[in-house]
């Protein structure tokens, strides 16, 4: 990466709150948002989920009605927070509608719409109902199309869908587009919403915890699925930045080349992504003040990531996973955790992980279970996904 980019505006909506203020408050109070799963018709899974309240009561405006699905509703709800709408409008006015890109991550897009439509297949012909719209709901690109359309933008747009690293990798792609001069600003982030495919899918892999997930706990027993919408407006730094302005200093990507649903056992791919991010930022491991771990709370993921972190950083750097609070928001996790990392930088604290009772003694890293007052200047955020896809981001304060 050639130059740092400015996270000029950002916002996140998840089970711990709509927008930055409630998200910050929940983190400060170490208040998690996980609750027993009673999503949709899913009553047979003994697991906890991080559901965003009120999506069912928040329809899209009629002009965007063809995009109606849970994922785009969550996106729309997220865009209303923290003045993000207005910030995009101002960026489009300043740079031009073709100079603002939309690069968002999602894993399952609006697949819930299709899952429900399959229940309403015509009993004779098997046809899907007329009110089912594939392009604007199910298709993986739907959420980027929705955001581009909602803001009347005409620039490049894309969805990155690399499972749970999706909305971290969008930062790298957007930075390349800005460096290449194709765009002046980008809406990046991710939106992923609850659906049956992920609930029953992770259940089939026996990766769902029967309790709120406990990242890096010796007795961790799986993940809790969540949903979130995180949006960041990324642009070149203004001539003078506030001291607490947050910059993207580097991104690093790698692949495990190992297995479809298990991480490389020594976390080799994870380590390569962190090394690449440090190199892109021109930093050394000693320059990092906090690591927001991927930390899904599955036994193998935390062991592999922990080994990679310990190899590079030893136990010097305070680390935590915030998935005990939000749940694993899958394709939105990279964006969600970039926003949490930005809050840590701006608000001067390190969020302790919740639900973890007994830190795994076999993972030699400095895992935080309580908040710590601090003045972090640079933080690293990890996102790793199925298919062995890894991305690490480094964010830092302007001063």
């Amino acid at each position, binding site marked *: 990466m050639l130059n740092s980019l400015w996270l000029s505006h950002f916002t996140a909506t998840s089970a711990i709150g709509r927008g930055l203020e409630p998200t910050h408050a929940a983190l400060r109070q170490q208040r998690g948002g996980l609750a027993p799963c009673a999503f949709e018709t899913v009553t047979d899974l003994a697991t906890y989920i991080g559901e965003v309240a009120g999506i069912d009561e928040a329809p899209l405006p009629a002009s965007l009605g063809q995009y109606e699905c849970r994922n785009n509703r969550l996106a729309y709800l997220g865009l209303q927070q923290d003045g993000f709408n207005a910030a995009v409008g101002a960026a489009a006015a300043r740079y031009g509608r073709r100079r603002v890109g939309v690069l968002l991550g999602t894993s399952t897009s609006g697949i819930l719409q299709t899952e429900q439509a399959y229940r309403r297949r015509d009993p004779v012909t098997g046809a899907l109902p007329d009110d089912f719209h594939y392009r604007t709901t199910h298709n993986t690109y739907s959420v980027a199309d929705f955001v581009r359309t909602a803001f009347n933008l005409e620039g490049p747009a894309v969805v990155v869908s690399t499972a749970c690293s999706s909305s971290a990798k969008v930062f790298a792609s957007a930075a390349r587009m800005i460096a290449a001069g194709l765009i002046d600003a980008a809406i990046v982030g991710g939106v992923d919403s609850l659906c049956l495919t992920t609930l029953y*899918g992770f259940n089939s892999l026996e990766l769902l915890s029967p309790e709120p997930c406990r990242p890096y706990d010796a007795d961790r027993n799986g993940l809790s699925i969540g949903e979130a919408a995180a949006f960041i407006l990324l642009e070149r730094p203004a001539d003078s930045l506030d001291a607490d302005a947050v910059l993207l200093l580097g991104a690093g990507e790698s692949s495990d080349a*190992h297995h479809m649903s298990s991480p490389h056992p020594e976390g080799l791919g994870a380590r390569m992504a962190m090394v690449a991010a440090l190199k892109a930022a021109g930093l050394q491991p000693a320059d990092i003040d906090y690591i927001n771990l991927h930390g899904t709370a599955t036994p193998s993921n935390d062991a592999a990531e922990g080994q990679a972190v310990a190899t590079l950083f030893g136990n010097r750097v305070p680390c935590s996973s915030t998935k005990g609070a939000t749940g694993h928001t899958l394709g939105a996790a990279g964006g969600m955790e970039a926003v949490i990392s930005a809050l840590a930088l701006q608000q001067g604290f390190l969020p302790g992980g919740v639900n973890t009772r007994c830190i795994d003694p076999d993972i030699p890293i400095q895992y935080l279970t309580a908040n710590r007052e601090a003045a972090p200047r640079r933080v690293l955020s990890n996102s790793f996904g199925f*298919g062995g896809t890894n991305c690490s981001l480094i964010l830092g304060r302007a001063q």
Partner: protein
Amino acid sequence: MKLTAYLDGIGLIGPGLDNWPAAQPILAGTAPYEARPLTVAAPQSLPPAERRRTGLAIKVALAVGQEACANGQLDAKQLAAVFSSSGADNDNCDAICKVLASDDRHISPTRFHNSVHNAPAGYWGIASGAMTPATVLCAHDGSFGAGLLEALTQVAVEGWGTLLVTYDMPYPAPLHAKRPLPAAFGIALALMPERSAHSLARIEVSFSDTASDALAEPELEALRRAIPCARGLPLLQAVARGTGVRVVLDYLAPLHLAVAIEPCR
């Protein structure tokens, strides 16, 4: 910054287009196009357990990716990869939705991990051993253009050699009626920052308002219009003809992508 790259290898599979050498005279207009169903072998580079789990989208993606590397005499381990598709393993998606709509919602672990949009990239990593960055994109009908842009920015900004793999496959009923993709198709381009002895052409990509180019052959033009990744065919036609030319490809309205192609031999 100019978005340029050297095209060192091409992979192609489609109905009546078995591979790049076979398709070259058809695209150049010196051999007739004959439509027939696409055939693609299971990737031998995958371990047997993984090979059994691959559906059509993964087979097509891996086949064209390997062909592009082989034609360019490139080591896949050294290349970053950009995968782009308007869908994914669409048979697998249908199977999962059917199970989830039934009284027994147990889906198999293999079905689930093959449901991610990046499944072909995951299998590509296992088959090739490449630990380099791999991203996986979707832009609906603009997926070829989105992949080309991402690959070109990787080459131009990062200085990486990047393998672009674009692929699509049909949905079975009932989704087919909502998204009628007629056939599977795949195009791969090995794009390099420096000219080599294997470079076929230098390409430069920019945004354009001009309407996209059509193919003269009516059946090929029908494929181009119906299958998102086949929107890249005008670029391949230009390379097949071996003349310097500028083609315009579909991207996301109102934007198109202009590709200036200069043959290297």
